[in-house]
């Protein structure tokens, strides 16, 4: 009888001690925010374009962590979907075309002669990349522009173009080596389809 009582008491005591430790740890080492949201947010391209239907990348990250689909981000494209699928252990799915197509990176460009200085694009820019004041010409800080095209719609005189980023020696990339279709020596000169009919 006493052994049972002792055992029960010891277990109760242990439960109490560990409960206190856990309780203390929960307060002391409290994690601010949801770490998974941070991780998802880090994978998103931070264009802040809202094409996913959420006002910015972080809200979409929160939505994904609550179970929303991972294929709503056109600027991120397939590589982002793959990275998200990898992180969340979900199925890789093609981009949902309802939210847009994957397009080459662009930056906004204001045709400055036509700008009337209405500041509407400045208010629309999610990353404050447009510089200007009322009745003054506006201009885009190219290095800060994410290419979200949110400024195009509000412009009353349609003077904003989305132009592809110019390739300079600084951001130029080495192309992937292409394998020669003339691999089989005795077959050279045949198979014009493969060679694009150039020879």
């Amino acid at each position, binding site marked *: 009888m006493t052994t049972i009582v002792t055992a029960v008491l010891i277990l109760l005591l242990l439960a109490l001690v560990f409960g206190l430790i856990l309780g203390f740890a929960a307060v002391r080492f409290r994690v601010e925010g949801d770490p998974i949201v941070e991780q998802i947010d880090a994978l998103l391209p931070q264009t802040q374009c809202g094409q996913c239907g959420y006002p910015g990348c972080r809200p979409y990250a929160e939505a994904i962590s609550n179970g929303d689909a991972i294929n709503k981000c056109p600027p991120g494209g397939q590589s982002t979907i793959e990275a998200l699928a990898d992180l969340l252990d979900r199925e890789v799915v093609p981009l949902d075309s309802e939210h847009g197509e994957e397009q080459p990176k662009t930056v906004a460009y204001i045709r400055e002669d036509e700008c009337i200085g209405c500041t509407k694009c400045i208010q629309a820019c999610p990353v404050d990349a447009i510089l200007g004041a009322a009745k003054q010409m506006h201009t885009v800080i190219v290095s800060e522009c994410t290419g979200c095209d949110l400024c195009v719609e509000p412009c009353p005189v349609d003077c904003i173009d989305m132009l592809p980023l110019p*390739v300079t*020696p600084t951001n130029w990339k080495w192309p992937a080596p292409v394998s020669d279709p003339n691999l089989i020596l005795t077959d050279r000169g045949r198979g014009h389809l493969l060679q694009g009919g150039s020879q």
Partner: protein
Amino acid sequence: MTRLYSFHGGVHPPENKRQSLGAPIRQAPLPARLILPLQQHIGKPATPLVAVGDTVLKGQKIAEPSGHVSAAIHAPSSGSITYIGLQPVPHASGLESPCIVIETDGQEQWIERQPLTDYQQLDKQALIRHIRNAGIAGLGGAGFPTDIKLNLGRDHIVNTLIINAAECEPYITADDALMRERPDEILSGIEIIAHLLQPSHILIGIEDNKPNAIKALRDAIRARKLPIDLVVVPTRYPSGGEKQLIQLLTGIEVASGSIPADVGIVCQNVGTAAAIYRAVILGEPLISRIVTLTGFALGHRQNYEVLIGTPFSVLLESAEVDRSRMFRLVMGGPMMGISIEDDRIPVIKTTNCIIAATREEMPPSPPAQPCIRCGMCEQVCPASLLPQQLFWFAKGREFDKARHHNLFDCIECGACAYVCPSNIPLVQHYRFAKSEIRNEEAEQLKAAQARERFEARQARLAREEQEKEQRRKERAEAAAREQARKKAEAEQADAGEQDPEAELKKLKTAASIARTKLKKARDALKNAQEKGLDGTDKLEATVLQLEQSAQAAEQAWQNATGVQH
């Protein structure tokens, strides 16, 4: 004699150096136009100091370094600035980049030179500033601004200075020619570097295929007091790689991701040493360099002293190029150089060799065949990497894995591709993977920046909203206070009967109202009595009451008027 160590791998490609060593260094002709790219070095592009239309003198600074890692640019000859803008530059992409174009006037009129012959008495920082102002960047090929390597500060103690004279790449003989003809310039430059770094020993590493240069240097060293060891190393490509030469001469392997200065070693090219001599002793900034012009499509295969900015086409003409035989134009050597399409591009600080090759000399590369996993690439890799693994990862776009296999330690020497029996363009694959990774990193950096700006904007909007709310609340409070104050005033006025006139008026009004009411009540009563209606008693009571109040009001008014008058 110092002990010689060894590095992993290496190859022995045909040297092809002899054809450009038959004649001494020749002065290249002065071109009509000099094209000076703002970016000729590693780091940030220089900022122009001149405008179109300005006249410049030879040696005048026309662009200054922007930021820590950057280099100045000087006018290589006198003339006028005709254009500042995009021009084709020597870059693998073949793209255009900002340049300053000088129309030369043929006068070669120097700006006043400012030599520092007494540099030993000078402050070291002043000397380093002078070298920085001379626009010197590593002439060996990478173009790293030299002043940074000489200004290491207190966190790096330099005990060994290595002068890289290996020049291991086939065809190139620019350093060889310089050592043969101007060993004293090199040694004076080494003296200046040694004065700045105070190393405990100085080593010159040179390959044994340059006996004339070895002899010239040895004679020059003997004439000086400097404790320099001339170490002759066996010819094996790429012994001239910085980390490979360090390992060859000292046995120390510079760790992945660190620089030689972390192990107390600084490496400088012989050409850079000569340029430092010219900058300090003669006061001439870096405006020319030695370029090897070789290849069997040229009539004169030899080394030229070329002004920076001279277009390739001018040099090729001067070397009597046979364009019908020229099949490939290569900038740099056959191992690490790049084929170029446009010969209008200029010589820059890092251009050491131009090869105009015939078809027989550099035939088109045979098609790549599948990797047979022979492992020869691994045996020759001087950086002890696994080229085959890196190839798979690059081809399969598994860039993370490639990075974990130390892709960025690859010096792109081309030894693996040279030995590959399947002719796989391995270096191209690595370059592709590297630029993809760099691009991804740049994008991530940009994304982080965008996130920061987005969050800052959100915070600002929230703050503005809150401030607006605050102001609205304050306004509402102020209005409420104002109303309360007015009310209180009115009450006070009521209670204090401050104004006798108003009081009198009020009493008069009250009396007249009471009279009217009484009259109306009397009329109603009379009417009711005439018609014989019920409830006249009630009306009678009201009339009585009104009579009383009317009397009281009349009395009050009478009293008040009495008081007043």
